[in-house]
């Protein structure tokens, strides 16, 4: 196998990798800006320079020349090479800044150049704290600057489109944003204009940067030149925690980070996962966080004298059980949910089974034309496939409507959905029978007819599993804390300061913004127990373990197997 020597260590490699990517894959850090694994390689920032040598080949024998110690004679190229664009070759010898003063100096020089016209407005820059330029300048840059002239001034507040703001002075002209619109989103909405130090990216005249994926350039930008109009000036990176999870606007389940400050979601950014969304997020996924902060309920309620009144959780469970206990299982309609996790739907199914009811069904939320064949799907729910794998199938609307009308359905148990809002039932049709509702937001229209209203934890407050449209099972983690103490949630949410999860010990943890809700996997066992059917689990992990062991469509899908990037169920042997 071909070999390469990097700073004296020999590595074997296959194929023709580029040196920079190889180094990054092997934990050898090299400063760089313009290189991105998903984009073409322009080698324009010139930050990733290394010294490169090749063995001298003896013309007569065709073999490498050896020195007196039997080592191959290495001839170093006179110019430093950009590692991002360099094809590795057998016998190559590379010196990085760790072993070459020449390389260290070139990196320092380059950073000096990058900073001379940079506005250095880090104190007010959203990128500060997670800025590759800032980090690398501290690590590899010069002590100060020898530049004693007026910096070049460029436009500082350019609205490129509805969602992205440009500060051209901060731009280091790496062209990542332009390459993204040329090569990935193919909208071709950005280009560099001007020349030399005046360069900056902009839209062509008359064009608005309204690409549905426009906000990805914000994360691509290695400086604070491109910022989110929605998020800018809201919070500094070090004031926030970032929780790895997935987005739920559609069935793709793109991987993301939820950024939390004061126990509110303030931003959603993409998380790389080549099996799902590569490095990208649709803008719509990223802006879809208000539902976690706004119109949230405040504790459970039951209907008394026609009005919902606030009660304790215990009282709410008692009431739900009391309403259901008089009714024959067959007469209760259990509505599962493509918004809820696999675990929650599974518990609902177990409860239905225990009461002798039909298997739950779910309400599909399909928006034809929303999908784009990429990271948006027509299906606006995150877990339809998870439901189906549990045997929870789309509801036969006509059937349940006629059953309700004929009095065959005498109670409805709704898991995290809105049958009235979605048009499955009219409010009048449900008015006279008990309705038990797990819900996220006070905008839920079924609340008007609910007899027991149980606030459920949302994707950013719970633990659980979703299966995306391609059969990829992924875990979610709690990003923000709920009011009640739940040991299982606390364990995941509050690991350490390093993870920057919001914990009671972090100063940005804010009780005011804790919603009094509970995960459905905590609510359902309470109700079940009161109906005489214990459904006790130590937590969602154990529920999933049972699912993985008993349901062939989930065979092997344990939390360990899913890890941070999830698993493709077919690949671990689960049935389709």
């Amino acid at each position, binding site marked *: 196998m071909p070999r390469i020597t990097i700073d004296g260590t020999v590595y074997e490699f296959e194929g023709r990798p580029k040196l920079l990517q190889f180094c990054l894959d092997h934990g050898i850090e090299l400063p760089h800006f313009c290189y991105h694994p998903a984009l073409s390689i322009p080698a*324009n920032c010139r930050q990733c320079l290394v010294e490169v040598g090749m063995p001298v080949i003896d013309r007569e024998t065709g073999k490498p020349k050896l020195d007196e110690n039997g080592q191959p004679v290495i001839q170093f190229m006179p110019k430093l090479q950009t590692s991002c664009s360099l094809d590795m070759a057998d016998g190559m010898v590379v010196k990085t800044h760790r072993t070459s003063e020449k390389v260290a100096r070139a990196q320092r020089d380059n950073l000096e150049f990058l900073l001379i016209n940079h506005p250095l407005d880090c104190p007010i820059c959203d990128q500060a704290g997670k800025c590759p330029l800032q980090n690398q300048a501290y690590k590899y840059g010069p002590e100060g600057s020898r530049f004693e002239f007026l910096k070049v001034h460029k436009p500082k507040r350019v609205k490129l489109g509805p969602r992205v703001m440009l500060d051209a002075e901060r731009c280091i002209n790496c062209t990542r944003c332009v390459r993204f619109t040329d090569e990935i989103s193919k909208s071709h909405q950005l280009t560099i204009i001007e020349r*030399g130090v005046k360069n900056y990216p902009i839209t062509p005249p008359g064009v608005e940067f309204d690409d549905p994926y426009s906000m990805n350039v914000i994360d691509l930008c290695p400086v604070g030149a491109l910022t989110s109009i929605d998020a800018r000036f809201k919070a500094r990176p070090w004031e926030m925690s970032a929780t790895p999870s997935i987005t739920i606007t559609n069935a793709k389940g793109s991987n993301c980070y939820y950024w939390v400050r004061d126990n509110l979601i303030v931003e959603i950014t993409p998380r790389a996962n080549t099996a799902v969304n590569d490095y990208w997020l649709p803008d719509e996924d990223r802006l879809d966080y208000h539902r976690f902060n706004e119109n949230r309920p405040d504790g459970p309620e039951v209907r008394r004298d026609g009005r919902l009144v606030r009660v304790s959780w215990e009282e709410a469970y008692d009431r739900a059980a009391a309403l259901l206990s008089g009714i024959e299982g067959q007469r209760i309609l259990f509505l599962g949910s493509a918004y809820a996790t696999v675990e929650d739907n599974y518990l609902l199914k177990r409860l239905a089974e225990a009461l002798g009811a039909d298997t739950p069904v779910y309400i599909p939320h399909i928006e034809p034309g929303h999908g784009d064949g990429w990271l948006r799907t027509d299906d606006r729910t995150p877990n339809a496939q998870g439901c189906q794998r549990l045997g929870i199938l789309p509801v036969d609307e006509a059937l349940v409507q006629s059953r309700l009308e004929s009095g065959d359905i005498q109670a409805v148990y709704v898991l995290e959905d809105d049958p009235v809002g979605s048009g499955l039932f009219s409010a009048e049709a449900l008015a006279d029978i008990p309705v038990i509702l797990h819900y996220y937001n006070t905008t839920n229209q079924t609340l008007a007819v609910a007899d027991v209203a149980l606030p459920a934890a949302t994707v950013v407050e719970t633990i659980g599993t979703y299966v995306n449209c391609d059969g990829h099972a992924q875990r979610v983690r709690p990003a923000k804390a709920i009011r009640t103490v739940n040991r299982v949630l606390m364990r995941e949410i509050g690991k350490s300061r390093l993870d920057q999860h919001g914990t009671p010990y972090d100063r940005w943890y804010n009780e005011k913004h804790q919603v009094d809700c509970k995960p459905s996997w905590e609510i359902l066992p309470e109700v079940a127990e009161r109906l005489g059917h214990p459904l006790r689990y130590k937590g969602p992990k154990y529920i999933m373990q049972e699912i993985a062991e008993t349901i062939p469509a989930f065979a092997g899908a344990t939390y360990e197997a899913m890890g941070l990037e999830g698993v493709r169920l077919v690949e671990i042997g689960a049935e389709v």
Partner: protein
Amino acid sequence: MAVNGVQSKAGDWRNYKRVLLPPIRDLHRLEVYEAHGGYQTLREVLTSDRWDPKAVIEEVKKSKLRGRGGAGFPTGLKWSFMPPVDDRPRFLCCNGDESEPGTFKDRQLMEFNPHQIFEGILIACYAMSVRTCYLYVRGEFARWIEHMEHELEKLYARGYVGQNIMGTDFSADIVIHKGAGAYICGEESSLMESIEGKRAYPRIKPPFPAQRGLWGYPTTINNVETLANVPLILRNGGEWFASIGAPNHPGPVLYGISGHVNRPGVYEYPTGMLITDLIYEVAGGIRGGKKLKAVIPGGSSTPPLRADMIDGVTMDAESLREAGSMMGTAGLLVLDEDTDMVSWLRRVTHFYAHESCGQCTPCREGTGWLENIVTRIDEGEGRLRDLDLLLDLCDQMEGRTVCALADAAAWPVRYTILRFREEFEAKCKPSLIPTGIDVAPTATE
């Protein structure tokens, strides 16, 4: 200049007969060019058994023709880098973007002898089995572009360009492409980007154009003057060409002489002319009988030579390298004793700062910084330490960029300071803390 005359490699240059810009009236018109034997070489190449494409390349190799675009790369060798013919398109780009300060010889060719360029292009296309050539012309040359387009139409009408040229089964198109005012478009890879309709950012090499050029296909780029030499080589033989001028860098060449001389202009002579002959004989000496201060031998990016450095130096790659400069485009800038070298350098740094495409960091930031400092010195606000900083910045730019513009910007700075340092020092203020003075008093006393 008898002593120097002996050292000239240009032979009997006083009786030299011009072949690139022959003294023929209206030669730019097809009828006149044909009447003087034009396109006969092309016909010979296309129809004679002797000239298969390989033989043409061999002949060009034999001629030792080196590119006239600035880098002086052997043309025949460059052509032979083209991969074997397959079903992919292949391209030739003829570089007429001529924008380097001090260089104005391609324009003469396009104005006075465009058909020799066309003929050279067609022969080159034949040699490399290329079907399409883009002639990229600096947009400011609008008048000659218009004229060349007119002549090109005539060529199409006559069947000299296009399908089945001269009734043979060889076909080739020529497309004239106008530049839009950027010096960087003359750099071969950004020239291709520009033709592709993109922003003219130079590409990283490798891959080289012969592997992956225009639209990703095998491509060769040659300068206008380079290709205008090709019909001559095929007509008179490679050996004839190789015998003209300096043996290692032979052929006729267009010297563009500008600056403080009595008769500035473009002059055609063999390579290997003594610089002194060019200044004092060809261009009629320094204006007003003044003394020479410096010569920039090959366009503004080549290092300037002090007057005392040019004795016996001839215009060819070898001699100029030994003297500490380069042949470049053979555009000589002659500066007399009154020239303020700082002011001159200020103008040059302004040009490169203005023309840097801004793609790579050291060039984008460095060219502007160089201009800032040189301007400050020129305005009497500089300090001595600025000179070291300038040299430092040259180190930080040279060899670390995508294309050679950064080098082209750094060389004049480096060598003007090294060779005319006293002029810079005279304009600088002393540094705030003079060296050699112990500024830290000892406390123990």
